[in-house]
């Protein structure tokens, strides 16, 4: 049986990592490389790195830096931000990324996800959706790091992206992002119901119970989180221990034998 994953998300802005609230009010949280090393040494299930300036400034993630980061990453490594074409995807995979997350380009280039999935395999194509909940309960997808309302409904959009061949959906709630108030269970549940590919819930984790809830109540296959790991004492390993106690299949952390 496949394991439910706990994935720290690293947001990369200019030369360091940041974390914001609602895709805004960025706080600097330190340099990238040591963070990758620390998470790697703590035996996390996977890492997601998103260059949040790449899209706004119109450049692809810097594959030279990605290559430095991936060298320190002995777990699956997802890279995103500013990816607009197949060449960039190939160059990031060559730089050591295992999966590429595509968000804005999926709206503008309707063939990119399909082409990438056909050429490189669905397993390396992560379709990222940033969704905002309105007061009337409706949801809309936003592109360009949460700046542009695309008018699309996340449920329909997820179905379409899965149909184009995406291997996973990374689903982020813009309004929960950084609040630590819990994942948007309704959003995740609606999307997870209509696609048969894994949905990674993102945005809002503030305690382990939030992670348990989004898996058990909303059907997420993985939980991504940032603030909880940056700003509290809570860790991915303890999150998994709590999830295991709640009956969720998680990957056991490996204890190194003393004789190494």
């Amino acid at each position, binding site marked *: *049986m*496949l*394991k439910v*994953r706990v994935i720290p998300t690293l947001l990369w802005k200019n030369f360091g990592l940041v974390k914001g609230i609602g895709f805004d009010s960025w706080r600097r949280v330190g340099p990238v490389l040591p963070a990758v090393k620390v998470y*790697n040494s703590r*035996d*996390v*299930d996977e890492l997601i790195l998103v260059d949040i300036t790449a899209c706004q400034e119109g450049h692809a993630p810097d594959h030279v830096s990605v*290559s430095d980061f*991936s*060298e320190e*990453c*002995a*777990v*699956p490594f997802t890279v995103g931000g500013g990816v607009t074409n197949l060449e960039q995807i190939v160059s990031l*995979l*060559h*730089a*050591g990324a*295992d999966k590429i997350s595509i968000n804005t380009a999926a709206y503008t280039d309707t063939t990119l996800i399909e082409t990438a999935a056909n050429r490189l*395999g*669905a*397993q390396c194509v992560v379709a990222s959706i940033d969704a905002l909940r309105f007061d009337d309960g409706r949801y809309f997808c936003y592109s360009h790091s949460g700046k542009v309302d695309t008018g699309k409904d996340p449920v329909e959009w997820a179905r379409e992206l899965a149909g184009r061949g995406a*291997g996973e959906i990374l689903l982020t709630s813009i309004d929960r992002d950084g609040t630590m108030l819990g994942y948007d269970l309704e959003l995740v549940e609606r999307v997870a119901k209509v696609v*048969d*590919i*894994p949905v990674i819930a993102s945005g809002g984790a503030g305690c382990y119970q939030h992670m348990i809830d989004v898996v058990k109540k909303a059907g997420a296959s993985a939980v991504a989180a940032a603030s909880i790991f940056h700003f509290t004492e809570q860790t991915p390993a303890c999150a998994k221990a709590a999830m295991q106690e709640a009956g969720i299949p998680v*990957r*056991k*952390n*490996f*204890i*190194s*034998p003393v*004789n*190494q």
Partner: protein
Amino acid sequence: MTVAIINYGMGNLASVRKAFEDIGAEVQITSDPNAIRDANRIVLPGVGAFCEGMERLGDAGLLDILHEAVIKQRKPLLGICLGMQMLASQGFEGGRTNGLDFIPGTVQRLDALSCTLRIPHVGWNEVKYRCEDALFDGIPESSDFYFVHSYAFIPECNDHLIATTSYGCEIPVVIRNENVFGCQFHPEKSSKAGRQLLINFLRYIPTSLC
């Protein structure tokens, strides 16, 4: 300890190189017969389709030297993912293609094994041992390893099957024929359990060389 990672143009080799360097090996990414002949260990990595992989091994002139190093010199070889699959007699991805035939068996798509779950099989899954093996020293039974694959190696002989995983069916995931090892998962992406497996591979000494 020198490790020759076979370079035949399939997949990113940086993480495999880094994983072996981290455990103290001297690594060469190479397609040079002399480097392969001189290495203590051979690693055949790879991501992609069976038929293209075999074609590229052939184009790079690697078939003879691999045969010499593995069968005649009896060097320990570890095949990873596609590299494991190509150890088989025959594969069916991209058309029926002969493999290296170091371990008798065929490579078939997961749904041909009556796996009903989504393909590719991607993610962390538990590895169950069928027998004791030096490759698993210090790795607890049912440890999780990272998988990305749509095809699986079906060994002809049960004695060559070392470990399996469950994914809608039992999938052979570690195979071994004397000095030839293969793992379907990616040890270089399997964090500490993967690291220990690579350490064990370096520590393994073929009996004929004792």
